Every structure is written in C-alpha cells, then in structure tokens.
C-alpha cells in the first residue's frame, strides 16, 4: 500500500518512449510553425544547443548540486534508519518523536528553507542541512512502518524459539521492513534533489538552482530548460540507483514483495 514507491519499469517501455519522441517532434514543429519566441518556449533543438554550448558550466554546477544532494541523501538515509530503529526498540523515544514526525509530515517543510540560511549562512552547510531536513522524514516514517509491519505470528515464533529482542529485530523485523525502507529511500532521493535545488533558489552562489535563477534573470529560457533537464536526469539517476540497490538487496536476501 505504499503508493509513494514507484516501481521501476521491468522492460524497456517502448510505447511511452515512442510517444515521448513523437511529442518532442511535435513540440519542435509547433515552435517552428507557430514562430513561438525562444524566450517563451524554446524548441528541443535550441535546448540541445544550449546543453552543448553551456556543457562546461552545466557540468560544474551539476556536480555542485549532485554532490550536495547525494551527500544529503546518504546522511538522511542513515539518520532515518537510526531514528526508526531507536523508535522501534525504545518506546519512550517513539512516544516523544512519533507525533512530531507526523506533524512535520503535514507541514510545508520546504517553506522552512530560509530559516536554514538565517542559521547557517549562505553556503554548503545550510544547503546540506536543509536537504537532509526535507529528505529524512520519508525514510524514518517508511522504515518505522516497515519495522512495525512484521507478522505478529512470526515474531511470536521467534520469541518462542528463545529469540532475544535483538534477534527478533534482526531476523524478523528487518527483512519485513526492507521494502518499506527502500520505498522511503526512493522518495528521499527525489526530496534530496528538491531540497538542494530549492535551497539554491533561496540563496547560493553555485549549483543548478542558482544557474536557473541566473538564466531566468537574463531571460535565457533555453538555458533554464537545459539546466532543469540536467537536474531531472541527475534526480532520476539517484532514484534509479536506489532501485538497483533494492534489486540487489532482494536478490541477496531473497525477499519478494
């Protein structure tokens, strides 16, 4: 029932790819035929031109954003796993943290971005902290849900066999929680890039978000598209990497959904 985890396609999706290419072609033709100004809607061709011309800057700023996002993602996953484990093992921690976690889920967390700038100044620390902040919640909540979803009979079976709390956790709860944890990590992958980019919108001197704001100020729409395309590719890349890790983990531990 975890709608937030989107499955990766099993086969190459030919039909959607074909319609996507067709849409690109129609887009190009529409822009040319209707003489839509580049500022409003650049044709795929001119976006590709921008990608080519601005490749060095895109690579540099992409590295900045990608590095920040991947770093924040790693920290968020680690922190989320630790939080969920603590909440599972110690009821007091759970009672203290769980209501706050749920409340934060309802709040527009991304809107808190400027606060991080106030606290940590413009630069990498505030950007990282903000990106971690927006991406840690899905991991923690997903993992906690998964740890709690363990089959009660399996837990009882393990306890009856003389299993300790830790063994129940290790052999029953953790395997059950794995798909949930990965689902949370997939959302976190997207959120880490969202956090990094929105952080760069607010204030930054590097990164794709910064580049987009600069291009917007100069009305260089093809460059906005190019930067966003790179950003989307990077985001999808991290998401896919989590998917690959999940597949590997499934093969290794033989759990199936």
């Amino acid at each position, binding site marked *: *029932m*975890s*709608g*937030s985890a*989107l499955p990766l*396609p099993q086969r190459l*999706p030919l*039909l*959607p790819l074909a*319609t*996507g290419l067709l849409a690109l072609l129609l887009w190009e033709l529409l822009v040319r035929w209707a003489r839509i100004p580049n*500022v*409003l*809607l650049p044709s795929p061709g001119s976006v590709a031109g921008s990608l080519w011309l601005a490749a060095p800057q895109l690579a540099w700023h992409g590295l900045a954003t990608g590095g920040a996002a991947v770093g924040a993602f790693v920290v968020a996953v680690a922190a989320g796993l630790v939080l969920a484990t603590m909440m599972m093992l110690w009821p007091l921690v759970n*009672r*203290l943290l769980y*209501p*706050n976690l*749920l*409340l934060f*889920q*309802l*709040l*527009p967390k*991304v*809107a*808190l*971005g*400027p*606060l991080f*700038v*106030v*606290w940590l100044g413009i630069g990498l620390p505030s950007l990282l902290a903000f990106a971690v902040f927006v991406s840690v919640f*899905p991991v923690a909540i997903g993992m906690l849900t998964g740890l709690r979803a363990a089959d009660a009979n399996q837990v009882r079976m393990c306890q009856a066999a003389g299993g300790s709390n830790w063994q129940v956790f290790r052999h029953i709860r953790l395997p059950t929680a794995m798909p949930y944890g990965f689902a949370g990590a997939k*959302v976190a992958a*997207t*959120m880490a*890039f*969202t956090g990094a*980019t*929105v952080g760069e*919108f*607010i204030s930054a001197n590097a990164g*794709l*978000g910064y580049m*987009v*704001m600069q*291009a*917007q100020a100069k*009305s260089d*729409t093809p460059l*906005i*598209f190019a930067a*966003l395309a790179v*950003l*989307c590719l990077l*985001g*999808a890349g991290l*998401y896919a990497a989590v998917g690959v890790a999940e597949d590997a983990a499934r093969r290794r531990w033989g759990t199936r959904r």
Partner: protein
Amino acid sequence: MRAALGSALGSAATSLLAVAAMVAAWEGLVRGLPVSPDLLAPPSAVLEALLRHPDILLEHGLATARETALGFVLACLAGVVPGALLSTSALLRRVAMPWVLALQIVPKMALAPLFVVWLGVGAPCRMAFAVFIAFFPVLIGTTAGLAGTDSGALRLCRVLGASWWQTVLWVRLPYAVPQLLAGMKTAATMALLGVVIGEFVTAQQGLGYVVMFAASLGETALVLAAIVLLCGIGLVLYGAVLLAELGFARWYGAPMPAGEFG
C-alpha cells in the same frame, strides 16, 4: 468507533504535549544560552512579531491562503478528471503513466522558474505551479481507487447485468473514494508547498515572500511568525479534507481501506 476516537484524542493530546514541551524547551534554551535572538528567536518573540505586524501578515497570509485554496481545488479537478480517464483505458495508461510517474521521480519543485517564464510573477503563476505540484496524488488516488475495486463486486455486477454507469455509480465510486481522499490529503500539503515555492521565486507577495524578505533582513522572529501562519493554513486545509473523510467514513460505516500517496 468510540475507542478509536478515544485513542485518536489520546494521541492528539500526546502530540500536543510533545509540541508544547518542544516550544517550552526552545524558549528556555534561547533564554538560558548566550544565543543571539536573531539566530533563534524564542517563541515569545515570534508571538510578539505576530502581534507587531498584523497588517502585513494578514495581507500576505490572505493572499497565500486564497491561492492555496484555489490551487488545491484546481489540482483536485486536474487529478480526478485525467485519473478517471486513465482508469478507463489500458492503452492510455500504458502510454501516459510512465510519463506521469517519471515526473514524480524528478525534483519537480525545481521547475518553478519555468512557470515564471510562462505566466509571469503574478497569482496565475503560483496557482498553476501549485496545481502542477499537487495534482499527482489525486490522480494516482483516483486511478488506483477506480482500478482497485474488489474484483468479486465487479463480477457480481456482471452477473446482474449491470450497465457501465451502474457499475461506476454503485460499486466503483464507493470503492474509490477512500483512496481519492487519501490523495487529496497529500495534495492539500502539496498545494501549499507549491504556492510558497512560487512565492519564493516570484518574490511578489504572500507569506513565502515575507519569509524570504524577513530572512534577508535577519528578522528571525518575523520569519518564524510567517511560518507559523503557513502551518496554520496547511493544517486548516488538511483538516477540511479530514472532515470530508470523517463524513464519508460515517456513511461507509465499515473500517475503510487505508491509502497513502505522496
């Protein structure tokens, strides 16, 4: 039902207590430690900021609330209609769903500047962006809800010779509503987020603008005051959907299947 309500109230009380404890700790911490109030304004200063700038906060708060509410309603329409269409055709799903899903994988909140390019810095830009951010959970909720009808109930309809319309009205819709409402709850939060990010990038009006503006001046108390109002707007909208859900649950009369999308 009563026990569930009791435990819900109990957990609400715990959560209120936890929040109150956090606020108190925050106040004590800021007063006790040599932290500059500019860096972390204590709750008392936030309250004072709320009272000191009622006109600014009210004006911008109303703008944000209006755009969020409208954006939410439009996002629901933009999710329900295509969602229902998608549920009718497998071919349509095969063509469109991968793209809709791909859109969720990419950091779509970063696409806000595009909307500025297309729609300028006014309310239409922010609302369109909010719709863009928030429609997806509604769409998935609609499609999953309509597609997830109990197969036995559908077979029953076929045995009885029910028409397409009868099947939709009597069976598919009631089965779909819980998931649709779950999608709408997520959409409520997302719509507010869309408007606020829109306000960040358009820098024209709204609480998001106040947050940015106050942050640039180092007025931490005002930043927090605006954020408190933002949370209020978010919770009111979320609460409205929650009320609708409770009303539906009363009619439904049975434990509803849970659904969550985000």
